[in-house]
């Protein structure tokens, strides 16, 4: 299979069932909304080490938010609804409530919800108050710049994590360019985030390690420096760099669409192959065949 002369390997990305939520952060201006969103989604690249995966979905215009201020949508994923709730309490409490002028709202309608504002309210030390209308409850926590408003409950729904593309290039510069182009294309899809730094990960991992205490280790099959020594290598001698893009989404269709757009955008000169990571289909609940995206 070829796109723009780039070989697309006949394989699949193995994705996993997760739980996801969408959070709207608003603030006095875009700068502070983004500051809170960046802080909240920092150290949230992989559930393996961060307990959740999170990222900025999009910037929201002031006219679209409930308080008429600029906002940022954040998606957060964990392995269970309970985990989503715990991470939200931690991250909204430490990263959003602390950020000047912000407010934080549920932006996912779902029958399944987790309590967030209802726990953060205790920071108010008895001075907190709530407003309840239209079936929603908002807590007002007094803080030094006024009040932090946070919604009582946030929706959680089944989601998909671990969609991915592997870009195999001749050298670092074209591979990096292809990854950046793919990221830009994939970020136009609603309902997905790319949790790694600016959407790209270089330290792709495999399950397990020769060391008992390490649950994930370097994906030697795609490390160019190990081509001559790793029996698992998937690289030819013309490949000098591999970068991966991981996609989490609120549903599998969004992940597929992001992969489809990324795959096309990454097919540029200097890229030898586009592939995807999987575990033989034995671990994940979803198989996304690259062939089906062409």
């Amino acid at each position: 299979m070829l796109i723009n002369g780039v070989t697309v390997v006949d394989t699949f990305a193995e994705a996993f069932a997760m739980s996801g939520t969408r959070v709207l952060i608003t603030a006095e201006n875009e700068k502070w909304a983004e500051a809170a969103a960046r802080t909240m989604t920092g150290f949230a690249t992989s559930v393996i080490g961060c307990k959740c995966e999170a990222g900025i979905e999009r910037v929201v215009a002031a006219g679209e938010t409930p308080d008429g201020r600029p906002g940022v949508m954040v998606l957060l994923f964990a392995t269970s609804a309970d985990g989503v709730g715990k991470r939200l309490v931690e991250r909204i409490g430490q990263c959003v409530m602390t950020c000047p002028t912000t407010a934080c709202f549920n932006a996912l309608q779902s029958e399944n919800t987790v309590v967030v504002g209802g726990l953060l309210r205790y920071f108010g030390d008895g001075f907190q108050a709530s407003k309840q209308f239209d079936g929603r409850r908002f807590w007002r926590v007094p803080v030094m710049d006024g009040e932090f408003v946070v919604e009582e409950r946030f929706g959680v729904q089944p989601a998909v994590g671990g969609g991915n593309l592997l870009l195999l290039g001749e050298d670092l510069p074209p591979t990096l360019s292809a990854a950046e182009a793919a990221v830009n294309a994939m970020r136009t899809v609603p309902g997905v985030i790319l949790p790694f730094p600016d959407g790209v990960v270089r330290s792709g991992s495999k399950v397990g390690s020769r060391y008992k205490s390490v649950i994930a280790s370097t994906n030697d099959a795609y490390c160019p420096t190990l081509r001559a020594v790793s029996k698992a290598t998937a690289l030819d001698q013309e490949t000098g760099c591999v970068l991966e893009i991981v996609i989490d989404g609120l549903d599998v269709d969004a992940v597929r669409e992001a992969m489809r757009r990324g795959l096309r955008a990454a097919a540029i000169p200097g890229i030898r192959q586009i592939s995807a990571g999987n575990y033989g289909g034995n671990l994940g609940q979803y198989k996304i065949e690259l062939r089906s995206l062409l």
Partner: protein
Amino acid sequence: MSLTLTLHTQPDVPLEAETIVPQRFDGMDAKKVAAAKVLYGNQPAALGDFFRVEGRPDGELRVVGNLSWIKMIGAGMTHGRIVIEGNVGMHLGAAMSGGEILVDGNVADWVGEEMSGGRIVVKGNAGHLVGSALRGESVGARGGEIIIHGNAGNEVGGGMRRGLIAVGGNSGDFTGVSMLAGTVVVLGQLGIRTGAGMKRGTVVSCKPAELLPTFSYACSYRPVALRLVLGYLRSRGLAISDAQFFGRYRRWSGDGVETGRGEVLLLE
């Protein structure tokens, strides 16, 4: 066609018609509805003695005519919709827990008294004691919404524990008296003695007001939580200006004779 009740005989004394509520008519035909009991002064009577009944119940109930002497319409309502074309008497939607009542006219006193859910929208003016507690009771509205597009009388939200009351015009004296919690928004002028005896809750006005000496000034700020409330009311058709939505409000805490945890927010 929805079930429609059209007043054909104006009562000489008040008619207590708490039977006019959608859930009581579920599954009935027009004949049975007309036979439903009402209290005419202190005498039992039939709904059909005063109303022409047409259509079939489908969850929406239309009541048409000058209903100023018809009391208790929608009392105890749990679901469905009542549309009233004309002025309506006291205790509209009393103790209702769900559903929606729309009034294209004025309402008398005690609209939504001690309600716990649902919504009442009045295009005209309202009398006294909107969403209040009955005399002898300490707790008024426990939830739900009342939106009055015109003016309201005294003691709006008296003893209110939860819910939202909005008045597009002015309100009378003792707005939010003895409030326990909840929100009262008055876009116009408040009367005197606002929030007397309130423990918690919020009274908002977009006009200057003289407050009791037991209220203490806290600060001027732009409350985000108020924008949520005003934005919601705007979506419900109340005319909220940008100046009111984005404005700076002076926060007064009170009533100091109680817990002092209530607040009055006045637009600067």
